[in-house]
């Protein structure tokens, strides 16, 4: 997809001025935060499970080649096929040929961020295949011709009234002409509209929360059941997943599942956790006839060897964006690519380039809530800081910032000179601000005074007073 991360500042401003978005954001973060805390409280082992989950992923990543080889062997043994794809283009071509083999006209899809990464929907449409998103939020976003603004709640930026208008407009041609008012009615209408689409689909594409090396299984976690209808009804399901989704055993996946829903939505467990292994067995009563896994690298194997390896522990729960005050004010679209919020601020520059996305790791106050709630204990602010270091080293940061920091740092290493200059400056500022106690505007401080006054300094520096022997 065309990234707009370069225009983060403009995107953010648009978000701040969008009243509907602000209403939606104000509602969603509070709910998720409270529910997460309550879920964690109910499970005394929650923190210990986070440690174990992290250790499992670290172990897996350190032996990723072996676990992926074993995973593939087990998929093959169960009658399925793994397609190794280095780039999104490789993956699109594999998916297209699988769709063509199945003579597919429509494809149902269960929400997958990897599909967003490979821009799958426009690609399928170009080839005459209609993709139908089935996750309710993703369906809303598809109807609106937008992109998800959150990784687990794709339409979190929309109000109920906006969804009502959208359904009214898009469903009228289907003979559903009444504008609905209540959430339950909207959910019901989506159910009724999508049900025949499931039944008619030739191919179903799902993501995967885990790939299990022990058994060659893929696991999906949903609340709606859309992922299951997507993968058991069509003849040919396709699972798309990136390399780092593999874990060794069912037990390992289980440990991570225990922190997944609690961190994401505050649920004890998501409604549907489904483990799929190969195509239907000869005497099975139903199920798909084939089983294909498109295993995508797209930069992950490279990140494994970089200082950003830890972000590969991410299980895409969304807790970081549920708790990020920056995400909470600007919304997910401001980030301009597939992954918003703190994890997006680390992933996006790694996947599409720091030149494209240099704003994202900078647009953080480093408040640390993301790291605090990340079930996999990914040090997100630390990783954002590493990106800022790369930016600085590669001279991508604005010249004004670089020279400003340079001058200040030079002075900061020369206490005597620093004292002399700042003492003088503060005396002047102190005198100018004495009467009102604040500045509403100040040269070179436009960034500050745009939103707030600058409190005036007391008028002398502490060090000057201390040297004069003044005591409190």
């Amino acid at each position, binding site marked *: 997809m065309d990234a707009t991360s370069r225009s983060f500042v403009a995107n953010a401003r648009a978000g701040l001025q969008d009243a509907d978005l602000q209403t939606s954001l104000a509602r969603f973060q509070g709910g998720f935060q409270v529910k997460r805390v309550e879920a964690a409280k109910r499970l005394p082992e929650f923190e210990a499970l986070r440690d174990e989950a992290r250790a499992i992923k670290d172990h897996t990543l350190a032996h990723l080649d072996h676990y992926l080889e074993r995973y593939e062997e087990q998929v093959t043994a169960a009658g399925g096929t793994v397609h190794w794809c280095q780039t999104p283009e490789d993956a699109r071509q594999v998916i297209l040929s699988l769709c063509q083999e199945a003579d597919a006209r429509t494809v149902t899809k269960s929400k997958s961020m990897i599909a967003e990464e490979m821009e799958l929907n426009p690609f399928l449409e170009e080839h005459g295949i209609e993709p139908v998103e089935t996750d309710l939020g993703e369906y809303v976003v598809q109807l609106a011709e937008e992109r998800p603004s959150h990784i687990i709640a794709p339409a979190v930026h929309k109000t109920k009234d906006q969804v009502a208008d959208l359904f009214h407009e898009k469903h009228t041609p289907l003979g559903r002409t009444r504008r609905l008012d209540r959430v339950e009615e909207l959910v019901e209408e989506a159910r009724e509209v999508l049900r025949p689409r499931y039944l008619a689909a030739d191919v179903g594409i799902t993501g995967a929360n885990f790939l299990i090396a022990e058994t060659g299984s893929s696991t999906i976690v949903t609340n709606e059941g859309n992922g299951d209808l997507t993968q058991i009804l069509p003849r040919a399901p396709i699972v798309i997943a990136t390399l780092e989704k593999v874990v060794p055993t069912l037990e390992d996946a289980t440990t991570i599942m225990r922190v997944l829903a609690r961190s994401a939505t505050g649920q004890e467990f998501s409604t549907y956790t489904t483990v799929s292994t190969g195509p239907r067995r000869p005497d099975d009563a139903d199920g798909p006839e084939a089983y294909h896994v498109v295993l995508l690298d797209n930069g992950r194997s490279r990140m494994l060897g970089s200082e950003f390896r830890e972000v590969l522990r991410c299980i895409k729960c969304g807790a970081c964006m549920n708790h990020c005050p920056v995400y909470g004010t600007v919304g997910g679209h401001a980030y301009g690519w597939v992954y918003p919020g703190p994890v997006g601020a680390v992933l996006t520059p790694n996947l599409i380039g720091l030149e494209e996305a240099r704003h994202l790791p900078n647009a953080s106050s480093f408040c640390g809530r993301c790291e605090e709630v990340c079930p996999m204990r990914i040090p997100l602010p630390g990783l954002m800081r590493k990106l800022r270091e790369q930016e600085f080293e590669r001279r991508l940061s604005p010249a004004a910032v670089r020279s400003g920091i340079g001058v200040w*740092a030079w002075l900061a290493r020369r206490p005597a000179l620093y004292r002399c200059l700042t003492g003088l400056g503060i005396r002047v500022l102190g005198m100018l601000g004495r009467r009102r106690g604040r500045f509403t505007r100040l040269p070179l401080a436009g960034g500050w005074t745009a939103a707030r006054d600058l409190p005036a300094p007391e008028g002398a*520096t502490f060090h000057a007073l201390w040297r004069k022997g003044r005591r409190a």
Partner: protein
Amino acid sequence: MPATPRRVGLFVTCLVDLFRPTVGFAAVALLERAGCEVVVPRAQVCCGQPAYNSGDRADTKAIARNVIDAFEPFDATVAPSGSCAGMIKRHYPALFAGDPVWEPRAQRLAARSFELVSFLTDECGVESVDARHEGTVTYHDSCSSLRELGVRAQPRRLLQSVDGLELNELAAPDVCCGFGGTFCVKYPDISGRMVADKAKDIAATGADTVLAGDMGCLLNIAGRLSREGSDVKARHVAEVLAGMADRPAIGAPARGR
């Protein structure tokens, strides 16, 4: 109760030095009342965060070496700021990771560096202060104090011992005020919204004063309250604990009204 360190190096912090010397004097008073001998090393400027958070690692290290040199001789290094204390305590060792000379030095300093209020309670065993403050206050947790240093209960405990003071909690005391160092000037729209939200939360408590332990947050919050024409005053928590809240509040005119 742990043995009280004898000699404390006060890391004044650049914002206290420049904008609010009162906080430095309040810190000295509180430390001396807790039985410490306070020294203010002259060779100090800043902990290096502006460079560190801008990705300028080389300058950060140069600044950090100065701080380590200056503060190594003391039993403890104390800053009236969770942000600067967190920088020394949590980030200096990481900054010098793998450096045979400086990593151990950074670790030694980190182990003996503290945020002011938690130093008073946790290291000096201070359980109450002898101070009076008439009015209702609310307390904003700075992100670094809270999440890097685990400071949460300590300032509240000491505030409860202040005569006449009533504490009304914010609905979201742990949410960032939007300061974030250089963040607030690089992304003024976002930072502005965050501090506006904070100001709303403060107003809803009905408090006449907002307290915090970090001058960064306080300049931001005071500046926003002032911009909105709010009567709520902003002060560093040390001013109240030291009984020095008789001076004009942050951003208030120098002499009365």
